């Protein structure tokens, strides 16, 4: 660190000038606090690896590819949980991304300021609702709605697709995906709204100035200008959906099965962990659950890395050096 040799004029005459000692303390204090992050991260990873060792030794790589999960026989495979995690998150994102962006555009570009503030406030409240409440609402209200209206409707009109076949049970993969969509929606909406509000007014004016309609100005200029922030928002929502536990556990049906139908019950890594830790009496059962957790950890890590790579790549592209 370079010490400042220039004497700073002090506000109060006679103030102490020795800046170096407090700075050193400050430096070490901040560094120590930041180290906590690394320690926690490494600690979790280490524990997951240590505890899942038995399962991986027993089942090897096939742990990831078998979907049988039979505690009685002592057979464990992660495939159905991985499948459920990705599918429910996928459904959530397919619904939440366009919906969030549309809502954000409405809030920033279309709505009267008062309406915008009101709905914007509601979006923030939605983000603050604990996930257990989403789960309860999902199970008691939304699942019933799915069973009596949405699923029969989909079955009738899109029943030719394997995705929408089978008895409407209310709970299941589709319901879980929708609940997840509702949960990530406020996050993506709020960030996208903030990003759109950051678009310089003069840029919007130029878009309108060459004769854009509102749709064209938003689609080709505002959204494009804010795309990096919006991609960031989408990644945030994605990460949240991947790891969401309580709400999904309530509505997904919790069955270790891979079924092509979105109506049927399934599970996710997080929901399996939440459900089964209490029941895991055998060491191999427990170790398999740890192995599941490690898989989720790695999916998250991979996904974070991709997200980071993407965002920086866009940054570079925008800066124009390529």
């Amino acid at each position, binding site marked *: 660190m370079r010490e400042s040799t220039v004497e700073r004029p002090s506000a109060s005459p006679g103030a102490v000038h020795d800046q170096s000692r407090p700075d050193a303390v400050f430096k070490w204090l901040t560094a120590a606090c930041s180290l906590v992050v690394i320690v926690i991260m490494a600690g979790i990873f280490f524990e997951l690896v240590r505890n899942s060792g038995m399962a991986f030794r027993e089942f090897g790589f096939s742990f990831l590819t078998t979907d049988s999960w039979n505690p009685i026989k002592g057979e464990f495979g992660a495939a159905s949980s991985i499948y459920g995690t990705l599918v429910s998150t996928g459904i959530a994102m397919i619904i939440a991304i366009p919906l969030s962006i549309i809502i954000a555009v409405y809030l920033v570009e279309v709505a009267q300021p008062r309406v915008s503030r009101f709905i914007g406030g509601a979006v923030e409240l939605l983000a603050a609702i604990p996930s257990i409440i989403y789960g309860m609402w999902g199970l008691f209200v939304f699942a019933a709605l799915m069973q009596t209206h949405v699923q029969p409707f989909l079955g009738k009109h899109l029943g030719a697709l394997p995705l929408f076949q089978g008895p409407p049970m209310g709970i299941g993969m589709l319901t879980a995906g929708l609940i997840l969509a509702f949960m990530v929606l406020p996050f993506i909406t709020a960030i996208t709204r903030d990003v759109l509000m950051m678009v310089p007014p*003069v840029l919007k004016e130029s878009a*309108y100035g060459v*004769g854009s309609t509102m749709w064209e100005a938003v689609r*080709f*200029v505002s959204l494009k*200008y804010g795309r990096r922030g919006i991609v960031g928002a989408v990644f945030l929502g994605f990460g949240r959906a991947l790891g969401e536990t309580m709400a999904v556990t309530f509505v997904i049906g919790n069955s270790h099965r891979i079924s092509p139908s979105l109506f049927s019950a399934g599970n996710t890594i997080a929901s399996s962990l939440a459900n089964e830790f209490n029941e895991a009496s055998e060491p191999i059962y427990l170790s398999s659950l740890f192995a599941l957790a490690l898989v989720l950890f790695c999916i998250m890590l991979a996904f974070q890395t991709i997200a980071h790579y993407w965002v920086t790549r866009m940054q570079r*592209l925008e800066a124009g050096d390529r």
Partner: protein
Amino acid sequence: MIMATEERVLVKPPSEVAKQRPGEIEDASWLPVKVKVRNLNFHYGGHQALFDNSIDIPASRVTAIIGPSGCGKSTHIRVYNRIFEIYRSHKAKGTVEIDGENVLSPATDILKLRKKVGMIFQRPTPFPMSIFNNVAYGVKLHYRASRGEIADRVEDALKRGALWDEVKDKLGEPATALSGGQQQRLCIARAIAVEPELILMDEPCSAIDPVATSKIEDLIETLRDNYTVVLVTHNMQQAARVSDFTAFFYKGRIVEFGATKKIFTNPDSGQTEDYITGRFG
């Protein structure tokens, strides 16, 4: 001072009109009028920014608008293409006729209006896309054109924007990678590409260096032949160099409007003289 009269007759032959350079024109009364403004009042919510503005902007000429900061220059020209309307609380009253049609009438097709009236802003505003797409953007909005036609149009606009030679090898690169002066010429090319008739420039050189400024002044000089240009500027020399007519605004009113030469050498109003000689502003 030229008073706003209802009708004007073109008395000189167009060939002779076209030959005149900035500063030579002494009288606007025989030029066709492009924009006829009558009793224009403008409110930002409760704050009135323009008071009874009336002016006749001559066609195919450069008209400069000068005046101290906050006198309403930007506000005035932002009425011509109704860009102010994107803010709810901004309200204009009065008439602004472009080619005889009142643009403030609710019947006006606002997209056609903005195609006809291009606008350049104080800071360059490249869209977040490639150089090519920036210029093609407006063309695609207003014309059904094949790829080849669009490319031709882009090239033509960039040439007329005096930017082609500098960017022809990097049309695919992001427009934001250009220098400020290049970005501003890109914005001019983007405006030209949709074939406007009137180009509004709000202090187009205030954010760029002197070399880039002189390039843009040269460009305005060439635009003069085909377009009507309204140029807001704080730079007296610039107004004197490039404009044929000058309007002096003060506190939301048009104090004086006339041939640039006259405004700068022998203004009618004492306020104009004070401003031009730098006694206030």
